[in-house]
């Protein structure tokens, strides 16, 4: 689709949010788009072990499958806020694993990505203004700012003016432009974020989990998969002290109904902790769900609610 070329498209924050919503709301995705999203292979960038999605078609495909993720990028035009975030979309470990099991995920292996990126960085490095040019420009900048400081009518004493003039005169000799101050332009459209079908040939789908899977994360994944299979949407529930927030539909349309807490059947919990989490749930009008994976492969759920008995 022509509009999805990340090099050309520069969405403003407002249009991003409204078109984002329209594009991502599951009930507005037509049937053929949904079929397409199910067969779509999503390109994931890994930063350490954090899976990130950058391309709009990947975000749309993932949302079409009912996986929400979390936007963690800043928006170029409204940077100093976190009410509205932009791409990339960070996936939960469980979401990444679910996509991996469906074969719908492709990750560049670390060696390939770093080599590609290194060559691209050096390429763009030379194309932008070189170090020498930037040094000259920085020196000009410094001189003009010193001149401005000397000529502004502020209550400076004579000695200060003298000091500034002296500094200006010796500037040509003593000025050094640090390498860390160098401006480098990186073209993100090319920096390893586009995975065209030809590239995907040598990208391997990494199905092995990172490191040993702990029993807790295995239990969490079983609960995630079961609830997703029942049609719920799940996001992380750090704000509510649980493992997942369970929505009856798309989070853009509903409030969550449940705070899911995953534990093993034999894990002992202090009754005080049960009261804590139940109290929190009743304060925010959500049911606390204690979820455990059974050895037979299913999941049992126990709802914890306020009794109403004062």
């Amino acid at each position: 689709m022509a509009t999805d070329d990340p090099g050309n498209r520069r969405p403003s924050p407002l249009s991003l949010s409204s078109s984002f919503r329209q594009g991502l709301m599951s009930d507005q995705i037509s049937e053929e788009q949904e079929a397409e999203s199910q067969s779509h292979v999503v390109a994931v960038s890994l930063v350490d072990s954090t899976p990130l999605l950058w391309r709009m078609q990947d975000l749309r495909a993932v949302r079409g499958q009912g996986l929400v993720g979390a936007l963690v990028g800043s928006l170029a035009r409204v940077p100093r806020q976190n009410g509205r975030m932009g791409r990339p979309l960070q996936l939960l470990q469980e979401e990444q694993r679910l996509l991996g099991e469906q074969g719908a995920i492709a990750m560049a292996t670390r060696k390939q990505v770093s080599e590609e990126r290194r060559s691209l960085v050096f390429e763009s490095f030379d194309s932008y203004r070189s170090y020498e040019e930037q040094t000259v420009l920085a020196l000009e900048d410094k001189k003009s700012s010193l001149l401005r400081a000397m000529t502004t009518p502020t209550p400076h004493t004579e000695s200060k003016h003298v000091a500034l003039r002296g500094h200006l005169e010796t500037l040509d000799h003593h000025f050094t432009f640090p390498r860390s101050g160098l401006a480098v332009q990186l073209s993100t459209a090319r920096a390893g974020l586009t995975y065209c079908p030809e590239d995907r040939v040598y990208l391997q789908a990494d199905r092995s989990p990172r490191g040993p899977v702990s029993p807790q994360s295995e239990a969490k994944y079983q609960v995630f998969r079961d609830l997703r299979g029942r049609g719920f949407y799940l996001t992380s529930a750090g704000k509510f002290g649980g493992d997942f927030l369970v929505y009856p539909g798309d989070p853009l349309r509903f409030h969550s109904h449940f705070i899911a807490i995953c534990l093993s059947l034999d894990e002992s919990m202090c009754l005080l902790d049960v009261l804590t989490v139940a109290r929190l749930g009743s304060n925010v009008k959500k049911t606390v769900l204690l979820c455990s994976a059974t050895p037979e492969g299913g999941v049992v759920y126990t709802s914890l609610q306020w009794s109403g008995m004062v």
Partner: protein
Amino acid sequence: MSESGDESEKKQPTNWIQQHPVYQGMKSLEVGDSAQIHAAFLVYMDLSEARHWNEVSYMKSPELEVVLLEGREIEGGPVQTVLPLPVHQNVNHRSLRRVLDRGFPLLLCAVGSDSTLVYQRMTDGLVTPDPPVGPFQDVDRRHQRKRRQQD
């Protein structure tokens, strides 16, 4: 003389529990956890005397070593199971499932050291919470601005 009078009065509050037939009945179940029996007794008294539940009875849970209570909140209503536990005790999900398997609605009661009682409802499955109560008013921009000025 007054001291001995005080002493006998001081003994009275603790003794009445131990002399109570229900408490002694619970003890005879030989559950083995005196703290849990004490908690169960307090819940029994609360249900039967304070909340006026009907047909409150106690029994030993076969799988777990606890005293369970049963009763009807209103006359002719459904039987509910109450699990009384001291608040500092640990529970696991499996034991809660076992009590739920009895087939009655379950109330978990946490008994504090000052005999505060907190009842929580536990149900199998996913129970949608009650929606927030209306009427709902969308806050218009004037109110938002006013609120911001006040802050």
